[in-house]
């Protein structure tokens, strides 16, 4: 298994020496990986740093935490520093307290002797440490599971509705021939050019009239019909052989049966692609829920995360940690659905 993966990863064109294309390919791929994966790695590493470590400049690559040692005569462990003494020797001392630019320090081996050290001469001693509290604290205090539930309801509900109504529109625009079919399609595609910010106010007014403010339906319904989805599904359905539809008609299938039992199963790869898109859109959606949802108990995760971003203070350590948590479901959905994308058209029943 591992050796297979290694041979796969280390394949090259040159038999003995590296061919120049091998070098080019690996450099190119490495850059690609850095570009795509670098920010994610940085996010995950940063989410384990303490608030102080995050604001440090220059930043450290790994999450580090200051070493603390127990010292006799003190209740709490004290932070450890490396101090350059006046005579040039370097000692490891624990800090008791700090007053202005002078720190009162003690040698852990000799707790009776107390030293006054200017803070410029000392360096904190640090080790690799994960700030797990970035995760545990918000999960306890912050209404995480409530927000998660809301996000899941919105994402799942909206995706199912999107798939249903988009596929119906695509079915109509691909299977039936009628006057104005292409114009209708062009019209739908044309709506792509109108940004959400333009229609924000009118849609908000409609949603208000329908009494859906502060309800998850207000988030789910307005965006359920997407031109991208209709276009994607329609183009795919156009490739389904006409004969299959005709055969179903000869088999006394109603139009609904043709849609549900013939076209939908065959459009599976396109539906999977749209499902992934829809999940990503809905999970990450921010502006529209922000407009519609004003009460804390209907917040989605993205709105919840926004709560850490105060006017005066941004709690980056919590934001980063919770961002990692919100990334996980989308990643899992993608991993699960991507095999459908690669499933080619089930053309094998036809010649």
């Amino acid at each position: 298994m591992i050796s297979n993966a290694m041979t796969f990863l280390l394949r090259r064109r040159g038999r003995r020496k590296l061919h120049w294309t091998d070098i080019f390919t690996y450099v190119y791929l490495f850059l690609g990986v850095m570009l795509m994966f670098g920010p994610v790695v940085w996010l995950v590493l940063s989410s384990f740093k303490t608030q102080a470590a995050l604001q440090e400049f220059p930043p450290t690559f790994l999450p580090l935490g200051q070493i603390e040692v127990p010292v006799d005569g003190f209740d709490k462990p004290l932070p450890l520093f490396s101090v350059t003494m006046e005579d040039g020797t370097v000692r490891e001392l624990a800090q008791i307290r700090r007053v202005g630019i002078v720190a009162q320090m003690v040698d852990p081996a000799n707790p009776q002797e107390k030293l006054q050290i200017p803070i410029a001469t000392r360096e904190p001693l640090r080790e690799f440490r994960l700030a797990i509290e970035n995760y545990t604290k918000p999960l306890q205090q912050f209404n995480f599971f409530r927000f998660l539930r809301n996000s899941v309801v919105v994402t799942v509900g909206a995706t199912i509705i999107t798939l249903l109504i988009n596929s119906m529109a695509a079915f109509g625009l691909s299977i039936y021939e009628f006057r104005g079919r292409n114009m209708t399609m062009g019209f739908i595609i044309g709506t792509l050019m109108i940004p959400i910010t333009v229609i924000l106010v009118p849609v908000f007014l409609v949603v208000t009239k329908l009494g859906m403010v502060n309800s998850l339906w207000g988030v789910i319904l307005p965006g359920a019909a997407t031109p991208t989805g209709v276009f994607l599904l329609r183009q795919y359905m156009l490739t389904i052989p006409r004969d299959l539809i005709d055969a179903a008609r000869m088999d006394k299938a109603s139009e609904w049966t043709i849609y549900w039992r013939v076209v939908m199963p065959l459009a599976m790869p396109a539906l999977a692609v749209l499902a992934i898109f829809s999940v990503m859109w809905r999970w990450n959606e921010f502006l529209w829920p922000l407009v519609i949802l004003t009460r804390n108990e209907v917040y989605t995760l993205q709105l919840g995360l926004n709560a850490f971003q105060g006017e005066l203070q941004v709690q980056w350590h919590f934001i980063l940690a919770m961002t990692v948590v919100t990334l996980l479901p989308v990643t899992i959905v993608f991993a699960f659905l991507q095999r459908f994308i690669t499933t080619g058209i089930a053309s094998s029943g036809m010649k």
Partner: protein
Amino acid sequence: MADLDLENVAKSFGDVKVIYGADLSIAHGEFVVLVGPSGCGKSTLLRMIAGLEPVTSGNVKIDGEIVNNVPASDRGLAMVFQSYALYPHMSVYKNMAFGLENTRMDRAEIRRRVTHAAELLRLTDYLHRRPKALSGGQRQRVAIGRAIVRDPKIFLFDEPLSNLDAELRVSMRKELAALHADIGGTMIYVTHDQVEAMTLADRIVVVNDGRIEQIGTPLDLYNHPINQFVAGFIGSPRMNLWDCPAAAVGPSQINVQIGGNTLLLDVTLDPVPNNLVLGVRPEHIEVADEGDADFTATVAFSEQLGGETYFYCDVEGLPQITIHLMGQRPSTRGQAMPLRLRRDQLHLFGADGLVLHQGTATRGKA
């Protein structure tokens, strides 16, 4: 089972006329083959019968009832497509059961019918496979099975064998003929292959350029083609057709020039055209003695099939002649071959392509 009538059925796509008023009536239990070159409109005609294509004018009648506006699903017909059109996401069983499930038939009855059809078509072992796991011939049989289980009024076949290899085509052809003898339904079959048409049909309908050229039994069409197109289309290899100048000799005799030779034929034609087309099938040309021969040809090449031999010969002033002889006839390229045309099997066509005369008595050489 049912009978079908087409009354002046026409079809146009926009300004393009595809079918010019077809009249056809098919009796209950008949096997009718629509044959014609590709693009002649025969498939369109079939799709209009099926209800998949609306009729521009004229009437389609099933059992005497006009069904022009009845959708395909309610006409009670079944169709086998050239591409088979099996549902790729369903098993063979599901493929066959789909049409029955749509009629809300009892499950036990569906099972009984599908099992029966599977036995008839030797598909019992494959019922749970997907179409992609089947060979071409098996897929073909599933497509036919899907039609059989429905017990339709009329079976429609749209070039069902054209995707199979030559050997399989011959055996499926026999199976289809046996199936028709077995279940005896009304069947309408579209093909461009005149051999299929000849072997399967009770009656053949020759279609060309959106018009029905001739309707008749296979041998009827073979022996008495009413025009040059049917003469050329039916029969393999093709009938030899030569443009010949003609002249009246007496009241019931004409002279026909073939190549550099003159043929005196006992035919009464009024008026005698200056030019006509002489048609003779490859098997109606005989090797004759020097004195009896109409003309002498040189062998360009020959095909020895063991039981029969085809010669392709050149004659001055004529297109290449095909000759079909029984038995084995050794020959060499360039060999001279005195030939005689069987007078009782000659076909004469006028300039408009319509037949003038068939089978003439002999009067010897001019």
